[in-house]
């Protein structure tokens, strides 16, 4: 049976969301939750994998409540998790501007922005909790931008009409993460969190149907061992690095979530990936990652390419009437400010036509000449100075005199482990928080909402629901000699040994680039049936070649970064396959998932709510064998689906 012949399993009917008015569900859930006596909490061990906004916040909070937390990160310090690179800001329905914002409006904007593919109950809770996050972070000393009166400044972000985004210059993620890291550090120093840096989760331990620990590898010594607990929380981020080139940190990876998926956790909406339109284009084949620049640049920059194909003249020599300001031409009402996905796709279209600029023709101009003429150089510098400086450092071009070159890049993944209202996966005792889960953003995430969701999950949502799980569940300790531990440890070690034993003639990066280019081409900004079928045929071939030709020097008993990369790749192959299958089966366009076959007459994404108004939760059945699809039908009681239009 081919991998493509997936079967339909039982629908997901129980999301564990309480009934009743949506405004009261979270309160009701917390009231009905079972509590654990404070004196008994230290008898419970909770494993948290990852130390980003979600994991850092969860580890600190659970330890403060008295649980024994054992936490892991592959970086040398918990402070380096990739949340640190988020620039723009964090949304919260504080309505400090008195501009009509409310929990209801943030809820509405998020469901609509997600193109009606998110679960209403979860999104409403996110909007409710958003206001507490700001209070918490301010109390920690997060240096948000302030006005002269000493109150918090906010700005409008990502096309919403209210000013609800709190920020700390262009380093909001860094400052929020350091707040969580400092709270976590306090708990580490107090002995409440046992922190394992430079340690990577390789697999999940499931005992008697429940998540009871992980198998992890000490990246310095190579030691592989089991860690047992009463519950496991995955806060391991997204899987954008499957594309090789993305704005993610180099070591962010999908192994933890994918291993959990292999052990039985359903994986939802893997094809929902977000592409950010304003990244610095690649400069050559050596490119190792892409750098994002805040999309606020589109407020004043004008995007264009030459009208003629293959026009290689420097931009200053291309006269005005030979330039195509294509966004202004196609979308006169919104112009350069169309949403992320539309701006990204339009850039790809003009580059595919041979009108792209810069090395390899993979770029479009973002021109500030008009803004500088209109506002003056000083005003432009005051607004965008740090971004211009960053651009100049990377490209050695001066954006005040030469138009910037930009190109879209993979930035965020909305898909992830399926979780219920309690953020619990389909494996009891296994929770997924932050970007690692599929919750809240539907098919498209709004700007400044990733930080909000990570902290909401970590500080406020997970602690009470985990409490409930531990309060309700009778768990015996897993004995150190339980056969499952030794079996999974051996399986993990075997895999590394198999990689080392191939001794072929291709590097891990060469395979990763090949996989990434394929995905970008066939499962990137625009997808169609033929392309997805090509990718699904090609991925098993690359995987087969990997197992014949991979070369990793050294051993598994030492710091071996090439081995880490190769091991992550093994999971990327399977994940990539599922992404393509998910994209193929979802024969509609929605949010970040654009199927060229499902477009409106003016070329916009056309949703097909009747057929695809569900979250697709996939069940693993084996490498290369067809998975089982479980549908969670989405119900919209409060926000009624409408078709977007920006023409």
């Amino acid at each position, binding site marked *: 049976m081919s991998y493509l012949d997936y079967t339909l399993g039982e629908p997901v009917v129980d999301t564990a969301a309480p009934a009743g008015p949506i405004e009261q569900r979270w309160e009701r859930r917390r009231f009905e939750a079972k509590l654990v006596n404070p004196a008994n909490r230290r008898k419970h061990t909770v494993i948290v994998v990852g130390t980003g906004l979600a994991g850092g916040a969860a580890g600190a909070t659970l330890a403060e409540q008295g649980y024994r937390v054992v936490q892991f990160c592959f970086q040398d310090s918990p402070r380096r998790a990739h949340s640190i690179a988020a620039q723009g800001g964090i949304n919260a329905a*504080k309505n400090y501007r008195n501009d009509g914002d409310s929990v209801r409006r943030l809820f509405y904007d998020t469901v609509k922005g997600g193109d009606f593919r998110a679960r209403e109950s979860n999104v409403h809770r996110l909007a409710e909790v958003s206001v507490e996050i700001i*209070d918490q972070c301010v*109390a920690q000393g997060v240096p948000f931008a302030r006005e002269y009166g000493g109150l918090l400044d906010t700005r409008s972000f990502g096309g919403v009409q209210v000013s609800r985004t709190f920020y700390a210059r262009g380093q909001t993620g860094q400052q929020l993460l350091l707040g969580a890291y*400092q709270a976590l550090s*306090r708990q580490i120093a107090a002995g409440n969190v046992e922190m394992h840096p430079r340690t990577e989760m390789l697999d999940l331990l499931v005992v008697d149907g429940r998540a009871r620990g992980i198998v992890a590898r000490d990246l310095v010594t190579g030691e592989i061992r089991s860690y047992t607990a009463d519950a496991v929380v995955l806060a391991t981020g997204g899987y954008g690095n499957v594309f090789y080139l993305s704005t993610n940190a180099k*070591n962010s990876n999908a192994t933890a979530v994918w291993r959990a998926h292999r052990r039985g956790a359903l994986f939802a909406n893997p094809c929902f990936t977000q592409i950010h339109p304003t990244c610095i284009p690649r400069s050559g084949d050596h490119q190792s990652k892409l750098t994002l620049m805040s999309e606020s640049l589109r407020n004043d920059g004008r995007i264009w390419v030459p009208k003629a194909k293959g026009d290689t003249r420097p931009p200053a020599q291309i006269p005005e009437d030979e330039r195509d300001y294509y966004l202004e031409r196609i979308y006169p009402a919104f112009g350069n400010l169309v949403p992320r996905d539309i701006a990204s796709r339009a850039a790809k279209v003009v580059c595919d036509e041979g009108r792209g600029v810069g090395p390899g023709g993979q770029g479009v101009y973002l021109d500030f000449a008009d803004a500088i003429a209109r506002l003056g150089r000083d005003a432009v510098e005051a607004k965008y100075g740090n971004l211009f400086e960053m651009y100049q450092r990377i490209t050695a071009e001066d954006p005040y005199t030469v138009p910037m070159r930009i190109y879209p890049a993979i930035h965020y993944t909305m898909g992830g482990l399926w979780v219920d209202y309690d953020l619990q996966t389909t494996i009891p005792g296994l929770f997924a928080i932050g970007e690692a889960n599929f919750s809240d953003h539907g098919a498209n995430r709004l700007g400044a909402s990733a930080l909000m969701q990570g902290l909401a999950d970590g500080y406020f949502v997970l602690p009470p629901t985990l409490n409930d799980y531990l309060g309700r569940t009778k768990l015996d300790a897993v004995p150190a000699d339980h056969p499952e531990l030794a079996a999974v440890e051996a399986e993990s070690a075997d895999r590394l040994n198999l990689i080392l034993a191939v001794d072929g003639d291709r*590097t891990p990066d060469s395979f990763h680039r090949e996989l990434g280019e394929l995905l970008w081409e066939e499962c990137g900004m625009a997808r169609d049936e033929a392309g997805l079928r090509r990718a699904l045929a090609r991925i098993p071939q690359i995987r087969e070649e990997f197992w014949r030709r991979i070369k990793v020097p050294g051993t598994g008993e030492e710091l071996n970064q*090439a081995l880490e990369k190769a091991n992550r790749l093994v999971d990327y192959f399977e994940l990539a396959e599922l992404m393509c299958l998910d994209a193929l089966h979802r024969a509609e366009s929605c949010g970040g998932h654009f199927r060229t076959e499902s477009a409106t007459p003016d070329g916009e994404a056309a949703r097909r709510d009747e057929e695809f108004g569900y979250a697709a939760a996939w069940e693993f059945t084996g490498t290369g064998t067809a998975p089982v699809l479980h549908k969670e039908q989405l119900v919209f009681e409060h926000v009624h689906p409408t078709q977007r239009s920006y023409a």
Partner: protein
Amino acid sequence: MNLTLRIWRQQGPDTPGEMTEYRVSGISEDMSFLEMLDTLNEELILRGERPVAFDHDCREGICGACGMVINGQAHGPERTTTCQLHMRHFRDGDTIDVEPWRAGAFPVVRDLVVDRSALDRIIGSGGYVTAPTGSAPEAHATPVPKEAADLAFEHAECIGCGACVAACPNGSAMLFTAAKVVHLNVLPQGAPERASRVRNMVGTMDEEGFGGCTNTGECATACPKGIPLSGIARLNREFLRS
């Protein structure tokens, strides 16, 4: 361009290391320094040799993971992180020395990878505000004067890369410690723990084996985030005040 690299290779903390020479060719001036090392590592892997180990992650200058001493300077000739240093700052035919951070408190793990966990322990000894989740008052209950907020932010930008320690002839972590003490001590939220914070953090800094400060100022010159040297004066003032 073609380059000669002399790179510190060391198997582990207890084995001796040495500078090893490599040649790389076809290096583009648009490559970052780490992409140049990627190129070398690809060649080493294909030759069956162990690639050069180095820490890196975000490659956009904010996570603080990367850091190496390049031609004797922490993060190299430009005031930025190693990942944001581009090869256009070197010339064809150059010989480049690449070493790990050198400091008593940063033992070498392997090659260019060092153990900077001492910095985490300094933070854990006081670099926080005790504000357990759920205990926070409404965010606008305490206005913060903009000057204090801006001063706090200027110091909060520290990425914990350790360049200040590596650049200091004494291997001192004063600038790192100052950055966090100033960030939190100038804010009203940090005031209740103001005295204990600075005492505990300075105490941990000394216990971890970092050197003392002799006002050389190399730290602030090497800092990729521009943490000001005046932060150390503020740290000293906070310490005396406590």
